[in-house]
């Protein structure tokens, strides 16, 4: 979609999330209450289908459009599998299938397809216990396949994430598949797309943390004046801004590179670097935010933890800085010192 259409959609979605995704919804999900109305409205807006082609019933947006919405969802701690469903729908439709209604998620891990039956176990599948279907990219004798399995055909162990969202281990034991299609992406690439999705959500959450903390420090008075007027606080918040800025800049650059380079392999290196960077800074962002807000920010009552806990969980999802750092480091070491600058200045993996 063109820039103007996207900006309009983002503005509408921002208002919608502000009105309908308040703390009660986020806290409700943590207590195990599925916000069915909220999800219905998300579907009515077409958000899970944003990157699905129009002829397949979607909004005809690009990967970049989808990622822009996910960044926004991150900035509102949207506690339903919008990101996961959007990515699942993108994969299924790119493999020739049709996107289905209802919440879904991606179960990306070691899964194998044999005779149209799926096998394998995937740990830490986001929202596993509340979705209607799982989408995976499975290995098969004739190349990777996008596979859809109905939730009823998998075994799910629910272990809520440390951010209070449903999450769990999913086992496919010779599971019947709703859909199998030749995958436009390999197994590793699917994982990369998951990492990119999380990097953008982290950019949104980081942005919200900064806004929340700045606002708090301007309101909170101690020793007779707002604490934002103390240099010690100003220095901390400026450092916080730098970490947030790096998270946003790297995620946006990776989103751009992935979008321009195509679904199959665009922006591989940039995604690895962005997820590494976002995961690396998550702790500093959370630490400064909590230190600035004192005891208030450590309560469950305040919304800060909706974002800091997600940052802590998301940095681990789809590869931490250790995981992606190793990939980058291995490739750059293999290419040797002389290739370092040319690869870095071209934003690509060294040959």
């Amino acid at each position: 979609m063109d820039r103007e259409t996207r900006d309009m959609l983002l503005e509408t979605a921002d208002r919608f999330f502000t009105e309908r995704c308040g703390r009660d919804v986020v806290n409700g999900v943590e207590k195990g209450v599925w916000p069915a109305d909220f999800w219905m409205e998300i579907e009515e807006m077409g958000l899970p289908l944003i990157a699905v082609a129009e002829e397949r019933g979607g909004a005809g947006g690009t990967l970049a459009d989808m990622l822009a919405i996910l960044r926004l969802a991150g900035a509102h701690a949207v506690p339903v599998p919008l990101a996961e469903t959007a990515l699942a729908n993108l994969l299924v439709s790119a493999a020739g299938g049709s996107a289905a209604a209802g919440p879904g998620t991606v179960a990306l891990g070691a899964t194998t397809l044999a005779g149209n039956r799926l096998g394998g176990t995937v740990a830490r599948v986001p929202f596993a216990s509340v979705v209607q279907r799982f989408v995976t990219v499975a290995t098969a004798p004739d190349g990777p396949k996008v596979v859809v399995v109905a939730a009823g055909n998998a075994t799910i162990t629910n272990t809520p994430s440390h951010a209070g969202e449903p999450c769990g281990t999913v086992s496919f034991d010779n599971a019947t598949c709703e859909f199998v299609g030749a995958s436009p992406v390999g197994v590793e690439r699917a994982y990369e797309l998951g990492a990119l999705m999380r990097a953008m959500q982290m950019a949104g959450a980081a942005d919200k943390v900064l806004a929340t903390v700045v606002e708090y420090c301007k309101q909170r008075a101690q020793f007779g004046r707002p604490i934002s007027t103390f240099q010690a606080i100003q220095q901390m918040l400026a450092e916080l801004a730098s970490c947030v800025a790096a998270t946003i800049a790297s995620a946006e650059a990776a989103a751009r590179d992935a979008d321009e380079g195509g679904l199959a392999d665009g922006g591989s290196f940039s995604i690895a670097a962005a997820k590494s960077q976002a995961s690396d800074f998550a702790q500093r962002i959370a630490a400064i935010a909590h230190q600035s807000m004192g005891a208030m920010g450590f309560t469950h009552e305040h919304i800060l933890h909706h974002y800091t806990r997600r940052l802590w969980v998301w940095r681990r999802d789809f590869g931490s800085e250790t995981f992606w750092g190793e990939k980058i480091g291995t490739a750059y070491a293999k290419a040797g010192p002389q290739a370092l600058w040319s690869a870095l200045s071209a934003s690509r993996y060294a040959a």
Partner: protein
Amino acid sequence: MSIPKLEFPPFHLPPEAEALREEVRGFLKATLPGIKTEDRFASWNTPSPDFSRALGKRGWIGITWPKRYGGSERSFLDRYVVTEELLGNSAPAGSHWVADRQSGPLLLRFGSEEQRQAVLPRITKGECYFSIGMSEPDSGSDLASVRTRAEPVPGGFRVNGTKVWTSGAHRNHYCIALVRTSGQHGDRHKGLSQILVDLKTPGVTIRPIINLAGRHDWNEVTFSDAFIPESCLIGNEGDGWLQVTSELAFERSGPERFLQNFYVLRELVRVLGRQPAKRAASVLGRLIARLWTLRQMSVAVAGMMQGGKSPAIEASLVKDLGTIYQQDLPEIARVLAESDATTEDDLADFLDIAQYATMMAPSYTIQGGTTQVLRGIVARGLGLR
């Protein structure tokens, strides 16, 4: 919420800039092998008139300036690429660095035609070098407190005072000095001007200030009744503060804020060998990811500037993150090399390099605005003060 959005719109350097990159690489490949390795490590702190002249011959100094002053009238983004290639390849760009980045643009913006004619063509040839005369013994971060006085006398000014940390004054041709031309010390920003000082002027004395690494980059420049002709006043009397603040903006988010000690990363890759262990690869990869991020941010700021915006906060954030990365790099690299270097000999060489880098590192977060001053600027941008 009313805080300004921090945005770094991803930006592609245009094809003509990328084509220039290849040209610059070809030039450096042919030119650099003749230069001693240890000289290359300080890059923009390493002077080499020969190198600067060769670069000038290619038209790559003052690349954005009008042709009538010897420039090439190319874009700011072309300059960006030349700069990052010089740093990425550890070229000894120290002789012309300040003139190209700061003094020339200042004269183009505020200088008289006579001043421009006198120096700009020589700068672009790589023959004329500049120092910055801002800091004084009692004026560091608080520049408005400068005491050096230029008293109007017939035909010019009589200058008295002392400038410090004046990089390269002992080998450069000119210094642009921030001085008080009217009013009193307490007048702060008012009554300050900048003057173009020929460093051979009688009454100007240059003494070395050796830094902790034993290098002679800095100087103390003393003015004792030095006569500076009226024609050397830059712009209008009293505009000095406006000039220095716009000058500092030139130098905030460029690639020198994160590529100054790039050689440490390159040598780290060498010392770890082609198949590092998992943990070593991971630490290396995280450093590379950090540097990549900084470059994306810096390029985004360059793109915004090219588009006519003045992203002051974003530029300050790049310097803050970039200089701290450069301080972290030698430490992380040293510890990693000690556990994961492939051979003892390589390790010993690398530790010497890392030690040197460590000794240079304190300067990064001081020069061009300390981290704390920058964070104050960012805090103001966030609406905190």
